[in-house]
Structures are given as C-alpha cells and as structure tokens.
C-alpha cells in the first residue's frame, strides 16, 4: 500500500508540475473563452448591421408586408422596370433586390419570385423573405377560396402530449430532449476523459520504457502496483485539470462578459431572443417544462451512477491503454493497438446518440448498456430516462468484473512488455505473453 501511494504521488506531482500540463491547463479555458467571446462579438456586430433590401412588387399583392425592422429596412420601388431597379440597387449599397412579377394567378406568382444580389445572399435573409411571402400568399389564397382566415387561425391547437408511467411519474417530449442532453453530456464527458487521460497514461508508460528506468522500479515494486499507481495518479491529475478548467473557465467567462458587456450565454441571434420574448407564454412554457424535466429526472440516481460508471469505465479503458504502452517502444507503434480500443468507444457514443434517443429501453440500447466496453457511455445516456436499479447494478457488476479481468490481462502484458525492448509485438505475441 505504501508503495502504491508513493507511486501515485510521484505520478501526480510530475504530471501536475510538467510545464506543458500547466500551460494547457491555463491556456485551454483562455482559448475557449476567447473563441466564444470573438464569436459572440461578431454575431452581435452582424446583428447590429442594418440591411436594406429593395423590393419591386409588380403584382402589387404583397407590398404591405415589408415593414422595416431593426435589422432590415425595405425600400419599396414603384413604377420602374426590372432593369432600372437592378441598376438602382447596384448603384446603392443595398443588400439585394426582391422581384415579384406581375401575374394574375396566385399560383403563378409564387413561382416567379426572384432575389437579385451582388453576392449570394445569406440563408437566413432568404428564408425570412420566403416565410413572409408564404404567409401572405397563403392568406390570399385562403381568401380566394372563400375561407375565413380568422376562424382558421383561431382553430389552431397546440399539443404537447403529457406522458405518465404506471407508477405515476409524469414526463413529456421536452422532458426527453432535456434528459437526452443530460445523458449525452455525461456520456461525452466520459468519452473525452478516456481519450485524453488514457493517452496520458500510455505515454507515461512508454516514457518509463524509453528512459530505461522500468527495471529499477520493478525490482522494488510489483508491476501491477506500478500500473495501478500510474492509472490512479494520472487520473487524479486529470481530475485536477478538469476542475481547474471548469472553475477558471467560469471565472473568465464572467469577467469577459462583464468587461465586454456581451451576454455570452445568449449569444444566439437576437431576433430569436426577441421572438421568444414576444411570445412570452411560449418562453414560460419551455421554462416550466425544463423545471419539470429536472424534477422528473432521477437526479440522485444519475449522480451516483455517473460516479460509478465513470470510474469503472475509465479504469477499464485506462488499464488497456497502460497495456498498450507497455507492449510498444514508442508512440508511433501504438496505432495498430489503438483501433480496437477506440472502436467500442466510438460505437458507444453513436449507439447512445442514435438508439437511446429513439428508444431508451429498446433491445439495442439495453444490450449495449450491459456490454462492459460500451456500458459506461450507453448506460449513462439511458439513466435519465429511468433505468431499473437491478439493471444498473447488473451492468455495474459486469463492468467491475471485466475491469478486474482487464487489469489482470493488462498486468500480464505489462509485466512482460515493460522488459521487452526494440521490437513491435504482434497480437499473436501478446497472447503468448499471457502464458509467461
């Protein structure tokens, strides 16, 4: 035990004191926040620019829908030909020219609307215009057909089917989306953690081999101890880094948003925010649903499961990374062994995103939430939707069992591999090592 804590301490301290580690720890949130700030700033800049769009409505049907807004001004042209209108627009700095031909049939008008501009227009401008025109022309067509538009509008119904399971737990579709977001965040976090810090473990095993210190060390400690010490020490360094990222990132974010006066969290295009605000009832509706969803989520279960599956999954993969590090001499040789590790991990994320959203308790999701290499990610994504405790325990049991197996397996490879120099082993040789 004493040896183990010594090794953990050394691994942790050398990682944390490492210059590139410190630089990365400080720089990553700075870069991230700087990026967000720049994007937010540019978005704001974009939104503040006023666009003027010239409109030539020869049909005279839709003129009145072009009301100036904060971002877009409309310059309605009258009694000019298309050619003249084009010249006018190109001589001014207007954004473009919307041309509606003079045709009597409403059906035909809709097919003969064009937008002229110097450069290809932005998608949002075009879809905004399309929406406006569609609404107006539909309106006109309804009128033409002799229908009462007001009545039609009034009879529109908005539905969000309330869901409730037999034990009386309520949920809704929005619930599901929020749950999925939570599940994906947890699964993705684990995925990132495994890739970043698994690699770190592998590199530190390789470092011990290339610096030839390994034989000195294992004449004092058991290889398994050394391996576990490395895994735990590196993980602690990883957690430290993660915590610093979150705290430092949060602080930076607050400072930047205060200094620049930009609300980073709401860096969404402003018109949507405005739209949300005008439809106050809708915003309230979403907010309520969000609160409800949080209440409906098995939060304690989620947190406990997150801790256990995170640790289990991470240890499982990191022992494999350690074994790879022990089997090879340098990082370039690791490629052939990396693929079989990355495959199940990527598979887990895809299954999580594509099948869990479709049917969180379907056969595919259930099966993959038991298989140890995919279970941490898939199960974490399923849990917000409510997974029976016995299923979670079973999956955890399988995970722990296979973790012990991989540690045994990795320790075997490790024990032999760390003393092998100068040759890149094949899979066949690795299997032979198990028998030594």
């Amino acid at each position: 035990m004493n040896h183990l804590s010594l090794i953990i301490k050394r691994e942790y301290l050398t990682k944390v004191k490492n210059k590139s580690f410190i630089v990365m720890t400080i720089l990553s949130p700075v870069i991230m926040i700087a990026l967000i700030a720049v994007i937010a700033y540019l978005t704001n800049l974009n939104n503040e620019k006023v666009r003027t769009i010239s409109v030539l409505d020869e049909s005279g049907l839709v003129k009145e829908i072009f009301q100036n807004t904060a971002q877009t001004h409309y310059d309605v042209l009258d009694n000019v030909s298309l050619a003249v209108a084009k010249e006018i627009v190109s001589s001014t700095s207007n954004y473009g020219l919307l041309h509606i031909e003079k045709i009597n049939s409403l059906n035909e008008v809709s097919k003969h609307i064009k937008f002229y501009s110097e450069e290809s227009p932005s998608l949002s401008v075009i879809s905004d215009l399309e929406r406006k025109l569609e609404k107006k022309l539909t309106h006109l067509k309804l009128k033409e057909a002799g229908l009462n538009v007001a009545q039609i509008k009034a009879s529109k119904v908005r539905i969000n089917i309330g869901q409730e399971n037999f034990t009386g737990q309520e949920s809704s579709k929005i619930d599901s989306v929020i749950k999925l977001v939570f599940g994906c965040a947890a699964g993705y976090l684990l995925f990132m953690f495994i890739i970043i810090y698994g690699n770190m473990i592998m590199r530190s095993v390789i470092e011990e081999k290339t610096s030839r210190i390994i034989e000195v060390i294992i004449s004092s400690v058991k290889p398994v101890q050394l391996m576990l010490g490395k895994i735990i020490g590196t993980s602690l360094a990883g957690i430290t880094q993660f915590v610093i990222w979150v705290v430092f990132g949060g602080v930076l974010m607050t400072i930047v948003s205060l200094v620049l006066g930009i609300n980073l969290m709401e860096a969404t295009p402003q018109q949507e925010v405005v739209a949300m605000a005008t439809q106050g009832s809708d915003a309230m509706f979403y907010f309520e649903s969000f609160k409800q969803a949080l209440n409906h989520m098995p939060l304690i279960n989620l947190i406990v499961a997150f801790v256990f599956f995170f640790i289990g999954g991470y240890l499982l993969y990191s022992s494999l990374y350690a074994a790879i590090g022990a089997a090879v001499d340098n990082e370039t040789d690791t490629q052939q062994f990396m693929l079989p590790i990355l495959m199940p991990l990527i598979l887990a994320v895809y299954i999580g995103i594509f099948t869990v959203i479709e049917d969180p308790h379907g056969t595919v999701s259930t099966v993959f939430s038991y298989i140890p290499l995919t279970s941490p990610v898939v199960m974490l994504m399923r849990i917000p939707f409510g997974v029976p405790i016995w299923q979670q325990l079973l999956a955890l049991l399988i995970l722990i069992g296979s973790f012990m197996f991989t540690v045994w397996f990795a320790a075997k490879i490790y024990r032999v591999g760390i003393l092998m120099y100068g040759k890149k082993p094949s899979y066949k040789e690795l299997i032979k090592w198990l028998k030594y």
Partner: protein
Amino acid sequence: MSNLLEVNQVSKSFGDYKALNNVSLNVPKGSIFGLLGPNGAGKTTLIRIINQITMPDAGIVHLDGVPLNASHIKDIGYLPEERGLYKSMKVGEQALYLAQLKGLSKTEAKKRLKYWFDRLEIGDWWNKKIQELSKGMAQKIQFVVTVLHNPKLLIFDEPFSGFDPINANLIKDEILNLRDNGATVIFSTHRMESVEELCDDIALINKSNKLIEGKLIDIKRQYKTNTFEVGLEAENKEKLQAVLADKFSISSANFKSLNNDLKLNIKLSENEKAQDLIAFLNNQAYINHFVEVIPSANDIFIQTVQNNS
C-alpha cells in the same frame, strides 16, 4: 562459510524458448561473485528471478536461508544493464523516490543521500534534472540509488559501462568497500579483466545451463595445463630448441623481455614436476624467465563456451 544466496534447480521458459535449465548456484556471504556468460545465455533472466521480477517455472531461491519473498526487496540492490532515470525529474527528488520505494523513510533517505552525494562529490547536482547531466554523471546517481538502502545483496549488471576510467575506478573501489562492510556482490559482466580484478567466485552460464562454478582460484587450478613460460639465454638457440622439443611438448611464447631470449611455452605431462624442468633447463642455458602459465578468466570463458557449442 555460509551462503547468502542459494539458487536451487531453477528453470524458466519463455514460450518454446528455455532461458534457464536447472541452474543451481551458491553465492557465499561476503564474496564478489562473477556471473559470466555470453549474450543471451540466461544471466539477465536469472538476475530478474533473484529480484523477483520474473518468477521461475521450477526451482527455488533462498536468500539468507529463507525462500525469496516480498520482504527481500529491501535486502537487494540491483543495477540493471538497461538502466536509466526519469529524464525530467530532479536528481534529488528522484533519488528520494527510489529510496522510499526500497523502504527507507524520507528523513533516513535524505541523510544517506547527503552522505553519498558528498562522498562522490556530486552534492551540487541535487536540483538538476537528469537530462542536464552527462551519461556518466547519471550512472553515478544510479549507483548511489542502488546501494543507498545498504542491501545485503548487490547485483551489478555491467556496472562499468558508460564510465570513464577514473570513475570506473572510483566505482570499483566503492564496490570493494561495500564488500568489506559486509555486503555480498553479484557481478555480471563481459569484461574479463574486471572479473580477474574483483571476483572471488564465478559461475559461467551458457545456453541456459551452468557450466562451471566455484572459487576463481580453484577453477584456474582446474584449468591449468601444467605449462610454463620460459625465457632462455643460450649460444645456439636452434640447437637448444631442438633438444627441448625432443623431450617436451613446446610452442613459442610471446612476452616482453630485455634480453634476446628464446621464448617458449613448455607443457609438462601430469607426472613431470616443475623442479625437474628447472634443473634440466639450468643445465642447458641461462634461465631469465620462468613462470607458470595461469589460465586467465578470459581463456577459461572462451574455452568453456567453445567446447560447449
């Protein structure tokens, strides 16, 4: 004299390859024991078994009369042939870490490190990183780390590689000093001159089998061929050589001499005695040089390995 280390019928295979085949060895307490053998003979495997890095397939190893177990880790100091240190770690931190892994407390380790660093005059390296030191300097630190915990048994695998002659001598003296203070040393090397200089006992391993073992002196006695190297001053050398060739089996010898001697190796049969040879030669010529040919460790090594293959 009792044995510190007893290796009993140890075998070890890696897959189909047999690295050690029923090897038994006894390392007497307080001796410097040379473990010799060509590359790939199985020396490193044996050393790793003694260090409990690998487990033997069969056989048992006793240290101080007790079968090897985890508590023996602190009794052994091992300087492997493939050796190195953490490149980006500071010398002092690293030495402390390695000493603590061997079971020393931090304060004790610090005290002993100070003693050794002062003794080898490397005290001002404490805060340097290994990558800033030369290879020879790093080797010195490695040596200190190996002996720091005062182990009963020291195992050196090619200890002098990477040292300049001055430092090699320094390390050699330290090894002798440690032996005089009660440590037992196993010494694995290809450099036969250091075997001659240092080793009391040797064992020779070739192709997974132990071929010879024992006191170096006894082995030399065993391998001597009753041959004498002589330098004779005579008026007619050709005639003298013919006379000698008639009576003994002779071959020409090569040694440094101030005179223009007839230099010969004269091999006696089992029942002939050196005094008789001297008496005979004394009658024929003036004897400038008379020495028994003692087989060197090098000769024994080459002869044994070649006979074995």
